């Protein structure tokens, strides 16, 4: 195929992508714009297909949670919605239910785990960001390894220890073990936030006559507050969503809502619409909180490795 563009070149002989076509040759250009439109709509269709895949199960669970006992096995979308399932699960008018207790247990353990992680993690992240000291890399990688370690490798011995110490099925025990989830997140992400701040800010504060502690609280903390808020929410979400720790280390007192949701599926007379209502309510807090941290999500989920 000749690449020389001349007036006499036969346009039908050209199979190259339209972009190198000279204006004198209208047909390939026309073809290219049509192809672009086709590619565009194909892209939109693929995207729509993916989001159908992504969202239909959610629509399904919402629908199921709103169906009456009679409707759940007989119809798909044509039903009269009722909040009866939610009332039943929450035990409204029934003096509360165990679900509410599990929900509160999730709340207490997650908030507790985040607070402990912040209290321990903020100084550690600050030290790792600002000081060069022996062992700092080891500490960071030990923490990161918690994120990647198979949980049961710790759970099995821990369950033996917990039985001995009386920590099995307690909030303290749960908050302790959830540090495996929240602590690496807090330290790694906050370190990257601290590193983004120039050290000269604290140096200036020192020379202004503030102590190191005051320099931290006066100059650094206000600037990383959004980062701390984002990390806290993300850590809360991960703690809330965790299943394997409460599943293996609690039985009733400190059992969380994720565990109880699976337990609902056990037994002989499973009411699927009630399970659905329980799942929806348990899934709701993280979904709502996630809306507030969209900006930080990439950075958070990648442990600070990717900044967007």
């Amino acid at each position, binding site marked *: 195929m000749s690449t020389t563009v001349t007036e006499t070149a036969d346009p039908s002989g050209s199979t190259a992508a339209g*972009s190198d076509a000279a204006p004198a040759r209208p047909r390939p250009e026309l073809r290219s714009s049509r192809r672009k439109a086709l590619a*565009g709509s194909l*892209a*939109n269709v*693929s*995207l729509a297909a*993916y989001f159908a*895949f*992504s969202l*239909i*199960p*959610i629509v*399904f669970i919402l629908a*199921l949670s709103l169906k009456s006992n009679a409707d*759940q*096995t007989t119809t*798909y979308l044509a039903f009269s919605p009722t909040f009866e399932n939610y009332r039943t699960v929450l035990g409204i008018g029934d003096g509360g239910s165990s679900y509410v207790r599990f929900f509160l247990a999730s709340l207490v353990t997650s908030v507790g785990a985040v607070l402990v992680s912040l209290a*321990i*993690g903020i*100084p*550690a992240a*600050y*030290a790792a960001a600002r*000081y060069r*000291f022996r062992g*700092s890399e080891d*500490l960071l990688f*030990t923490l990161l390894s*918690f994120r*990647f*370690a*198979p*949980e*049961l*490798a710790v759970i*099995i*011995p821990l369950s*033996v*220890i917990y039985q001995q110490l009386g920590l099995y099925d307690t909030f303290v025990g749960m908050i302790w073990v959830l540090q*495996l989830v929240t602590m690496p997140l807090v330290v790694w992400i906050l370190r990257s936030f601290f590193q983004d701040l120039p050290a000269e800010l604290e140096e200036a504060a020192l020379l202004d006559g503030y102590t*190191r502690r005051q320099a931290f609280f006066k100059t650094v903390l206000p600037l990383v507050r959004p980062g701390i808020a984002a990390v806290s929410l993300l850590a809360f*979400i991960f703690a*809330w*969503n965790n*299943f*394997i720790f409460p599943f293996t280390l609690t039985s009733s007192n400190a059992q969380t809502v994720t565990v109880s*949701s*699976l337990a609902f599926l056990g037994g002989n007379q499973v009411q*699927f*619409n009630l399970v*659905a209502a329980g*799942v929806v309510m*348990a899934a709701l807090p993280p*979904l709502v909180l996630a809306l507030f941290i969209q900006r930080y*999500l*990439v950075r958070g*989920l*990648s442990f600070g490795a*990717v900044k*967007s």
Partner: protein
Amino acid sequence: MMSAPVDTEDRQPSAAQPSLRAAPTVSRRRRALRPYILVVPAVLLCVGVLYPFVLGVSYTFFDFSATNPEPDFIGFDNFANILSSDAFWNSARVTGLFALAATAVETVLGIGVALLLNRSSLIGRIFERALIAPLMVAPILAAIMWRLFLLPEVGWVRPIAESVGIGNYTGTDSPVGAFAWSVVVDTWIFTPFVAIIALAGLRSLPRSPFEAAAVDGAGWWLTFRRLTLPMIWPYVLVAVIFRLMDNLKMFDVIFGLTTGGPGNATTTLQISAYLDAISYARYSQGLTHMILLWALVFLTLMILVRYLRRVQNRAAGV
């Protein structure tokens, strides 16, 4: 160390200023200790977690179980037993297959979704907000949701299957179905994870090389293969590492969906360790599974992180 206020009108008398003679000192040793003081709680926490882990490793050399609370030292017998058992190798195979399949699908699909969203069409902007919803739902809840979704009694998959002519829909009842649906659910949850990281990569790309490629008349596929993919690879690789590590130890999704069944078709190493150690209280057996998985995970992680460093250095060097 409160000091007298500085005299405002008169800058002369240094007596009014805090005196250097009285300045408190901090020795070099105490200064060097500063970062360590800040990390003491974190180190204690690590010790608190590493202690059970080390204890766990030591259990693998005993025959510790609920029925044998005073265990004997048996050396490498646990490892020998497990490595010669078919159940272990089945679990190892399932673990590996699941991790590879799920990671591969999530990576390809995630990059695809990112590319589509990066076209910044209106429909894309709307979808982008909803993209992360599955990722924020607890994996166990997602698994329960899918379990219901797949149930012949109440789910929507059977009617969809029948409408396209698949009559013998069995859901997760068949071994192949259980494995495949586990991969699907994992993909459903975690594709957005790869997608948002790849999207961050795409949005960080400089414009000029692409304009140059367009001027050169490079086609879409060529541009993607030679330009886009290599440039977002450092980002994608971070996502791949996270996904592969997580999928190697995936518990929630599979346990919630199939509990490891039917039979042992979806019994991964974590699930078999759970069954051994928690359900049957054979601690040493379960832990031996976990130590082997742990070794596998860290070997993989080390290789991948080393590769990631190379890729990132190369990217930074360009």
